[in-house]
């Protein structure tokens, strides 16, 4: 055991495994291809790993939940719990099984990886952090007395690659703990793919904690609130149009932050994220068109082709009064309210 420098977390177990991509292979074969073992805590580069371990719960932003397999069971969750507080033999066995599970889930066109599992305790709390460092070529340079020496390393693993992945789970030994965790996936930065399916669905046997219905409804609510706080007509229109665009991207996996960065005018992004809250802005979900249609509905009426009145459907009739006249096809329209913005444009 190693007592951390600030005595906050005591690191209790570390395992490292080379994990080749083995999707589609037989499990027995995969087990033989995964190599590695427990690493004594005092032999890990703690000035690299300890800060990663410590900051994991703050920096890994996407909440996930284990998928129940049979009632309340989940094989990966069981293994994570065994790694967290099993005896040495159980921990090493569980860590190896996790490595095999990752190899089996990894698509054949992906690179091998270094799986590192690090656990720690803090009073009754246990934390398990899992990292995958993808294989990468590297050069090592050394200045020697006889001159510079450059060596090509084919067995290096990268912490900077976009294929780097991480997961953290934390809780007590309660039966109900470790049902959720957080992940980090540098593929999130691509904005088109918030995380790799094989890491969450395949390896961790999990799903985003936020359901698609919950996320889509939240998106609609935050967007409506953002429109309410926006006074410029151009920006309002851009926000309404953004909803129109995203509605038709059924099954697009997104977070509120990715939506803001991709679809909203720059001036509106901070407002949108402030309304959503940082804590929820990175949770991912798939767009459900039906939910957006239900929760985000704007009614527009055009008068004589040039004049438009637009507003939220559920408030429209409160503000806009439309009456028949005694002239055919002619309506009388009246509104009462504050003018919050006026715009003159050359079209």
């Amino acid at each position: 055991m190693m007592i951390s420098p600030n005595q906050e977390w005591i690191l209790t177990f570390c395992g490292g495994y080379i994990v080749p991509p083995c999707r589609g292979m037989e499990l027995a074969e995969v087990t033989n291809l995964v190599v590695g073992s427990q690493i004594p805590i005092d032999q890990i580069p703690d000035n690299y790993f300890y800060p990663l371990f410590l900051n994991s719960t703050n920096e890994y932003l996407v909440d996930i939940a284990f998928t129940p397999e049979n009632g309340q069971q989940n094989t990966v969750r069981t293994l994570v719990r065994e790694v967290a507080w099993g005896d040495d033999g159980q921990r090493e066995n569980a860590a190896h099984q996790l490595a095999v599970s990752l190899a089996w889930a990894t698509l054949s066109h992906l690179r091998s990886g270094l799986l590192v599992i690090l656990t720690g305790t803090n009073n009754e709390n246990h934390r398990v952090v899992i990292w995958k460092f993808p294989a990468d070529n590297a050069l090592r340079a050394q200045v020697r007395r006889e001159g510079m020496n450059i060596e090509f390393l084919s067995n290096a693993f990268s912490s900077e690659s976009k294929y780097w992945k991480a997961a953290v789970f934390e809780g007590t030994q309660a039966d109900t703990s470790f049902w959720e965790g957080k992940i980090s996936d540098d593929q999130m930065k691509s904005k088109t793919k918030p995380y790799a399916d094989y890491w969450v669905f395949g390896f961790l046997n999990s799903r985003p904690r936020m359901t698609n219905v919950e996320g889509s409804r939240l998106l609609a609510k935050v967007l409506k609130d953002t429109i309410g706080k926006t006074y410029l007509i151009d920006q309002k229109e851009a926000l309404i149009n953004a909803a129109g665009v995203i509605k038709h991207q059924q099954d697009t996996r997104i977070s509120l932050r990715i939506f803001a960065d991709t679809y909203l005018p720059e001036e509106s992004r901070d407002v949108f994220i402030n309304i959503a809250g940082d804590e929820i802005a990175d949770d991912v979900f798939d767009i459900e068109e039906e939910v957006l249609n239900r929760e985000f509905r704007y009614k527009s009426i055009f008068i004589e082709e040039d004049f438009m009145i637009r507003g939220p459907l559920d408030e429209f009739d409160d503000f806009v009064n439309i009456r028949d006249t005694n002239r055919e096809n002619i309506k009388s329209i009246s509104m009462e309210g504050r003018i919050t913005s006026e715009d003159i444009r050359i079209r």
Partner: protein
Amino acid sequence: MNEELYKEYESRRGILSDVLHEVEERLKISLENTPRIDQISTRVKTTDKFIEKAARNIEGTEKDKYKFPLEEILDQMGARIVVYYLDDVEPVSKVILKEFREIEDERKEPPEVDQFGYIARHFICFIHKEIEIKYRPPICFFELQISTLFQHAWAEANHNLGYKSTEDLEDDDKRKIAWAAAQSWGADKIFEELWGKYGKPKTNNNGSK
């Protein structure tokens, strides 16, 4: 009684109640277009019942069932949906699974096929993250039961008898309770059949009603 545990649970009931109120609102909205729902109700477990449950032993042993009762007792926040017919359980379940992320999805029924007793569909679900951020409750899941009118009637009548364990019952009484459960099972089957025959909207061969 564990005084500390009592106080700790008592102190959390207010927040749990606020959270559950929002959960109930969400359940009602999400199910407003789902037909044949008799009731949607929620409750926070009373402190006395929580302490009673926390004190339970693992069956047949002297060992505590719950090492961390404040985390492990799953029905501190409970919701119940009662539907008319057996056929109505699945559509409600589908809505629930779209709305909430589940930790557990289980059909509770007697262990043997020739036994009669408690039957219901049980979920343990995460509360929505928005609610969790708003209230910061000490637990973030609730239990949801879906049962038919007859399953619910039997369960409520049985529960209110007040016995703590079936070991307290005489053999004849156990048979009577099982007999009553069999009647509710039978009533569900009969009404399922009748509903299919007379009540269910028919579709034509071309799929229209």
